[in-house]
């Protein structure tokens, strides 16, 4: 074997050379596979470059689900769930109602009126007889759908319809509903349009 204390080739062997072969196919395939799997990872974890999405949240939607619900947001969420369960069956989840059967709540002047007194009477006592909604004449027979609901729920659903589908009106508080309920007593008769119009707004 070569001399132990020296490198084998002493003196100069000249500059090194390199063989001419190319990189083997398998490593290129591995690279492509890793590019693809990594790409899947990038897709699921990057939040798609949103500046608000920080790990561990994976997307804007997920971040929204973890936003704490404050008073206003909670009321809207609550109002929506009451609406869908109680009112939406007739008036539609888009508030458009059914022509000839149930008036639309979207754009209805009863809903968007400044004061909520007249509006609050409707779910608490019901409507019967002639009433004009949105320039059209209706002959309705609505039961007191909100009579069995607690004040907060009625307030929440009224708030919800007053700020959905383009409606923009102030929220309704549970106290307002309580006052109206006290006013109308235990088993009120449904109101007609004329009677409602006679009330203060």
């Amino acid at each position, binding site marked *: 074997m070569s001399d132990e204390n*020296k490198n084998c080739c002493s003196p100069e062997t000249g500059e090194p050379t390199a063989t001419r072969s190319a990189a083997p196919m398998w490593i290129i395939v591995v690279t492509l596979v890793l590019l693809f799997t*990594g790409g899947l990872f990038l897709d699921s974890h*990057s939040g798609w470059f949103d500046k608000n999405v920080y*790990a561990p949240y994976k997307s804007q939607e997920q971040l929204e689900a973890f936003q704490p619900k404050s008073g206003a947001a909670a009321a809207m969420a609550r109002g929506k769930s009451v609406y869908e369960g109680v009112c939406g069956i007739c008036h539609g989840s888009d508030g458009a109602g059914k022509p000839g059967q149930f008036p639309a709540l979207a754009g209805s002047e009863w809903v968007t009126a400044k004061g909520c007194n007249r509006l609050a009477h409707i779910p608490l006592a019901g409507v019967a007889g002639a009433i004009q909604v949105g320039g059209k004449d209706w002959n309705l027979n609505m039961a007191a759908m909100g009579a069995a609901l607690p004040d907060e729920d009625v307030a929440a659903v009224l708030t919800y319809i007053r700020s959905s589908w383009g409606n923009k009106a102030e929220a309704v508080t549970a106290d307002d509903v309580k006052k109206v309920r006290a006013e109308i007593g235990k088993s009120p008769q449904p109101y007609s349009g004329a009677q409602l119009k006679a009330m203060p707004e």
Partner: protein
Amino acid sequence: MNPTENKTMQCGCDAPVAGIGGEGAAATIDASCRVPLLALFGGAALWLVLGLALGLAAVMTFHKPDMFADCAFLTFGRAQAAANDLLLYGFAIPAALGVMLWILARLSQAPLALPIVPVVAANLWHLGVFIGTATILGGGSTGHPWLEYPRAAAVLLFAAFMLIAVCAVATMGSRTNGELYPSHWFFFAAILWFVWSYGSANIFLQSHQQPRGVVQAVIDWWLTNNLLFVWLALAGIGIAFYFLPKIAGKPLASRGYALFGLLTLVFFGSWVGIPQSAPVPAWLPTVSAYAGLLSLVSIVAIAIVTKKTVCGACVKCSGGPFCFIKFGMLSFVVSSLLYVSEFCPRYSRVLEFTWFNFGVTQWQLLGFAGMILCGAIYEILPRVMGKELPFTKLAKLNFFLFAGGTLLFVIPLLIGGVEQGMKLRDANIPFADASAVAMKFLRISTTGQLLVLLGALCLLLNILVMTLQWKLGLVKTVVGVVKDSLAEGSAYQPLPCDKEAKP
């Protein structure tokens, strides 16, 4: 095309010589590099010793916390930062540049172009490192890890690098054969890399209008990755791919493979670096994790090229430069794998904020860059100076001190880091226990650090004595000439030529 491996290649001095114009040409090339390399290597070795010593002093705080309580300039935060920067900017980069210049000159088969330029650059560089270190210890660090040098020092380093880049490009331009050797590619990339990343990061972070907030940290992470991972890899692999085939007497395993390794390293490796739990939007750490996964391919490719080149070489190294460089490449593979694993989300939860990262960084700096550069210096210096190393036994001891010391230094840190990380993840374990478990390992690790320091002293001694011998030789020659010309009257005496390079 299958790589043609010449397993029966004869080792010996009758191995095919690649068009060299005889021993004389090599000697001229080597002689042209003498002063620049001495300037670069001498300073680098000095900074290596100083950096290791400062690092040792810094880590003593954990064993005896009140050691430097009254000494502001040796407090852990300052000493550790200064030590880290000394290892990278003081030792690794100038030594790598010196080796690069020599290799470029040899590959071009032409003497170093503009030899005065690297000498000036070396002096500027060392001045910059000195100013930077003094400023950090004095309390003026910029606060960005690995970029603590103040503006003046950073400007000096950048200017010095540009000068060396000019010399390197000029040397490459003076080559006679057209085809580039793989090391050329790596060095070219390395030159561009430092200029752009160091320049850009400093422009953003040292200007009066720093970017606000966490962007500073992002830029700092980008630079740290590009220097510690990519740049050291480019320089180290380029150097190894030159010396390994040369010493082994075989050709480099494959151009295509090396090219593939280079391209994947630069394209994917440059995106790694953002820690997984950084306070930045999720896309940044995710992109780094993705890039880390892809960098594995590069590491594997380089490892295969190295293995194919080294295996079957009938060279015994026994502590010589071949050992250094082989160990260095092995360290590259292991330390890079560990580095990349820090960016895998599953592991980063355990490894973050522990001693693991420090261990990996030191492995990259000392185990990979340090070993390869040391081996290269021991290979180059005798040729450049035209004489044997003054302490060959110390040079061999250097290998064992470095190898054993680095492993003893780094591996306890890695294990300790993992243990610390696992304890940190469990909120029921008090923080003091998590730290205490790391301290156990730190004691072993400090012993390793001491061994590495002793090894560095061997290197410094070799270079210093060699420089002194050369300078003394110069003085003697001049004195001799003056004496002779005085004695002989007006008879003209030609200066004796430099001795031919001896094995």
